[in-house]
């Protein structure tokens, strides 16, 4: 419940003025509709005021022995008013629904568009669930803000006009009415406060209870395996009882609201009846006017409590807007430099074209990668790469190995341009990586992350994700290139198998195969792989290796390797430690040297080898 409420680092404070101005900008395109809506609201307000006046007039008629015609005319007037009122309300609701849907839709699109263009640092840092809540749920709050503001305006109008009308009828009674106002305002305010307090503490308790219930549900399977059903049930009962107690306490507090308000309203009516009655007896007001005051009480009461609680109610909406704007405004650290600007910086002022374009990559890259004295840090404390240089020839395959934190994934993040580096240069085919059009550039990268992500679609469509133009036959051909397509046969529905959310219908190994097939289909000049650590059955592993071999043969490849067969299959192994290259060479050479790589091998790869298997087998047998 509180998931979306916690502050994130990119959150910022906007003044109420800034917020309102920015929200106003969303409504600005609908100026015409807003004006029409305002007119309708005004009409509804007017009718709301005129109806009691008519009824009071009717009561007054009672005193002077009216003719039937006047009575009928009066009631027809009232009838017409109520129909018009209903029609106006209908119009108002229809207009509001459209206006709100349009504005929220626009805001969602903006928020999504801004979010998807944030750099990867943003997504690594902030939980996707929270970002999603902002885009869908927080925008929804906007409808509440809109309704609240329009209600506030119409209620204010009602109050002001009502008070003026009542003053002209009887200033004494009006004063009596106004004396009660502070009580109402205070009550409305106090209740919101109490309600917020219990609701908040209640939510916290409920969140706790909910997570306990979830565990109880998830634990059923284990309980069943060990025949511990009674034990887990007893525990569940305890949690359930606690949930009941917490909720009941909260419910009791909130139950007080309406009875108290009703009692206060009764008191107000009693006062108006007595005071007004005396005034009527004394001849200060007519009986009709007195009646008008009594029914006005209701008209007065309701807007007052609402206005009193307006600020506390709208706070939620405003902070929701603040969260959305903060999401939209979060700054990207990855910045592409326009060519012209770069030239200016370099001092080639004679060649200024003022053509503010990024380098377009019309041709296929060769795939040469060069890091030139690159500095990179995630934040002030965490310097990852310092003065780092590395050259990877076109078509070469390179495996990065090292302990956690050595800088392996940083190198990948810089090549994919997911993160901004602070010093030095990264050249791709000899050109500065910062000058590329990002979309064009990334189209030439094949990327498989540690936990391959699949979209909830068919295997077929997942394979052609980066190449939507491929025909079914072409995708099929790509899939069949991997190990003769045996893995496709193992899928329940072949290439048309639905992979489920995040690919959950497929095994980890199959997901990796799909991700590799995606790269095969893309046929990129540069291939980047952060190898999965999850183990895979030996049959699937063979096919993954086959897919990998196909890609390695064709692209410049940078791999973070976790599997022995992968490190064995690359041209060059680069051993990293604290952001520095401490050893390089191929597997056999490095093993023979008996240095850092040999040690790493002992820690991370040895258990995958046939020797290790034989060794364990012997040891266990003994």
């Amino acid at each position, binding site marked *: 419940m509180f998931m979306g409420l916690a502050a994130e680092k990119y959150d910022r404070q906007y003044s109420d003025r800034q917020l309102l101005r920015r929200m106003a900008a969303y409504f600005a395109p609908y100026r015409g509709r807003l004006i029409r809506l305002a007119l309708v609201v005004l009409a509804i307000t007017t009718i709301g005021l005129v109806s009691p006046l008519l009824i009071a007039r009717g009561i007054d008629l009672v005193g002077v022995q009216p003719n039937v015609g006047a009575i009928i005319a009066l009631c027809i007037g009232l009838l017409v008013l109520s129909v018009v009122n209903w029609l106006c309300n209908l119009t108002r609701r229809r207009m509001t629904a459209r206006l709100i849907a349009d504005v929220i839709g626009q805001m969602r699109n903006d928020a999504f568009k801004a979010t998807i263009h944030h750099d990867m640092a943003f997504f690594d840092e902030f939980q996707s669930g929270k970002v999603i809540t902002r885009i869908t749920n927080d925008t929804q709050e906007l409808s509440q803000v809109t309704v609240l503001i329009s209600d506030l305006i119409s209620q204010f109008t009602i109050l002001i006009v009502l008070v003026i009308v009542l003053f002209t009828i009887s200033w004494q009674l009006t004063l009596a009415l106004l004396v009660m106002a502070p009580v109402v305002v205070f009550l409305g305010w106090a209740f919101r406060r109490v309600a917020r307090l219990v609701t908040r503490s209640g939510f916290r308790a409920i969140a706790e209870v909910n997570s306990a219930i979830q565990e109880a549900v998830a634990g059923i399977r284990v309980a069943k395996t060990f025949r511990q059903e009674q034990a*887990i049930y007893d525990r569940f009962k305890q949690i359930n009882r606690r949930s009941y107690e917490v909720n009941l306490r909260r419910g009791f507090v909130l139950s007080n609201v309406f009875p108290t308000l009703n009692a206060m309203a009764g008191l107000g009516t009693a006062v108006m009846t007595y005071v007004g009655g005396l005034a009527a007896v004394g001849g200060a007001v007519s009986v009709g006017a007195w009646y008008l005051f009594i029914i006005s009480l209701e008209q007065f009461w309701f807007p007052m409590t609402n206005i009193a609680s307006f600020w506390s109610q709208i706070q939620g909406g405003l902070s929701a807007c603040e969260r959305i704007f903060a999401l939209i405004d979060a700054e990207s650290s990855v910045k592409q430099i326009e060519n012209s600007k770069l030239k200016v910086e370099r001092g080639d002022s004679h060649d200024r074209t003022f053509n503010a374009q990024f380098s377009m990559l019309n041709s296929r890259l060769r795939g040469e990668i060069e890091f030139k004295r690159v500095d990179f840090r995630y934040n002030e404390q965490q310097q990852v790469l310092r003065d780092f240089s590395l050259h990877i020839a076109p078509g070469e395959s390179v495996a990065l190995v090292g302990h956690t934190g050595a800088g392996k994934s940083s190198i990948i993040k810089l090549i994919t341009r997911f993160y901004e580096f602070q010093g030095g240069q990264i050249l791709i085919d000899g050109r500065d990586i910062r000058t590329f059009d990002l979309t064009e550039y990334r189209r030439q990268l094949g990327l498989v992350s540690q936990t391959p992500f699949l979209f909830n679609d068919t295997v077929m469509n997942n394979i052609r994700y980066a190449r939507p133009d491929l025909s079914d036959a072409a995708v099929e051909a790509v899939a069949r290139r991997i190990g003769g397509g045996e893995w496709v046969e193992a899928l329940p529905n072949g290439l048309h198998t639905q992979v489920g959310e995040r690919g959950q219908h497929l095994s980890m190994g199959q997901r990796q195969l799909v991700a590799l097939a995606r790269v095969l289909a893309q046929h990129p000049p540069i291939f980047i792989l952060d190898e999965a650590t999850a183990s895979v059955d030996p049959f699937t592993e063979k096919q993954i290796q086959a897919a990998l071999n196909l890609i390695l043969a064709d692209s410049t490849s940078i791999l973070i390797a976790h599997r022995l067969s992968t490190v064995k299959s690359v041209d060059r192994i680069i051993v990293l430690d604290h952001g520095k290259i401490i050893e390089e060479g191929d597997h056999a050479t490095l093993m023979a040297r008996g240095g850092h790589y040999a040690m790493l091998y002992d820690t991370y790869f040895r258990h995958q080898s046939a020797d290790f298997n034989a060794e364990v087998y012997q040891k266990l047998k003994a």
Partner: protein
Amino acid sequence: MQTSTAIPPRSATSEFSVEREWHSDRRSPARWVFSHIWRYKIYILGILIGSLGNAGGGALMPVLVGRAFNAVVAQPPDIGSLGLMAVLIVVSQIVRAILQLGRNFSSEIIGQRIERDARDELYTSLIGKSMSFHDRQSIGDIMARATNDVREVNLLMNPGVNLVVGSAAFLIFPIIIGPRIHPQLILVPLFYVVAYVIAVAYYLRRLAPATERVRRAFGRMNATLAESIEGIETVKGAAQEEREIVRFRGMVDAWRAAAVGQGDVESLYLPSLIFGMTMALGLLHSLLLYHAGAINVGDVVAYNGVLMFLQFPTFATQFAYPQVSSGLASARRILELMNAETLLDENKGGYAGQIRGDVEFDHVTFSYGKDERPALQDVTISVKAGQTVAIVGQTGSGKSTLTKMINRIYDVDAGCVRVDGVDVRAWDLDALRRQISTIEQDVFLFSRTIAENIKFGCPDATQAEIEQAAKAAQAHDFILSFKDGYNTIVGERGVTLSGGQRQRIAIARAFLADPRILILDDSTSAIDSATEDLIQQAMFRVARGRTTFLITHRLSQIRWADLIVVLKQGRVVACGSHEELMRTSTDYRAIFAGDDERPRKSAMRARRPTSDSPHEVRGALDIEGREWGMGSGG
């Protein structure tokens, strides 16, 4: 494990039941909710009295105001009576507030108790379901029902039913008070009630599908969004941002259309029109009666005041009925889950001996659904007590399904599984499962201490026994490395353990439980060789002395197994010891040969496969022999 003689027939096939004297009516959602509410009759009475009192007190006010009017217009004005009326108004409204409070408290109590009871009922029923049921059901879905849907049923009662009953009371009073003033004055309130009922029914019928459309559109939008954000690296890596933006915009548009549709249905709310007309007609009628001299001024005031009270049901309905109907929808979802038949039964009084450990699969065939490809086809294996069986094969080849036949998580479609020569279906389920332990791939730990997690299957184990089990499972050392040792809280609210550590806790559990048959689904692999070494030792030890089924990716384990079963699409393609299979099975040899193979790009380019495995040669040729399928443009 408890049983009772009072359990209804439905629970006869349950794996777990709790003794209770009360049972809900599960024939339909409405009946079910009603049977839950009906348990708390005294509070129902509280709601009814409270509602009537509230409405009555409310209706009394205009009557009293009317009397006050009569007192004022009387000649001479009756000031004493006016004061009395004012006092009566205050008293009546305070009494009314107290009654209303009673109503709210009563309905709050019922609502919360329903939530509690329904959750308890659901949970008990879930524990009673077979493992096959839990295998099929997603945990997220069950959780949603145990939290949100149960809450919805609570809201159905309060504010839902509470408001429905409360506002219904307000409908009654104008009908009662009107004719008391003058017989004819029943007409207008009666007109309102009839028109109101029809209009509300019409409104609700249109609203339900509109709301559902919005809910679905919102859900789809949310799912699309979640996918794009969670797969952002893939999206960015493939430079498909624009496509995702367009896709999302489509979803937003669909949501907008649905939301506007719902707004349109809501705007056409006829009861408020009927209310306005009622007020006009009421005034007309009372004034005409007054004109005819049938009623006095106070009556006119009272009557019109009473009519004003129809405003409450007019507007409360818009909110209360959708709440009730969404509560009923939730009740239906809960019932669906509870009424799902569990396929297995406990088979109390079945065979219940000590298991020796012989396991026999006799031409076993099984499929998960009628139309699905069989997960197991004609599988015949014979395992002697104490043997270790490694089951290998690709994902989806039926490895886990095979083991699930032994402890009857599923029952065979054809053929037979025998433990110690007795068909598993003839065993007492409790006796059978008690002697078979499973260590699942994804080890679930409760948010409790490590010690409690280890002794989960044997609550009476002593600390010494726990530590002994942990030592045997190679878990003792890492447990002691935590500040609180065995009292370290793990899981969601404590220390997060790595996959290898969780696995060793599960092995310790198995040591304590000391089952005769052990099923080990071991598909995780350690990141480093040292841990791998520890896990291997733990597994080897726990397997010793019991019949063990190992689903494994580890070549070393496959190697030391007494029997290796190679599965391919539900069939046994090879079966035997390591040495035998190396001789006879190409499929099997391919795995072990793989380790020596070095697929070098240079080698591939030269079309010179380096592997000496016949299978690999074929595979490599396969890859190379094919045309490079597609035009690989950049």
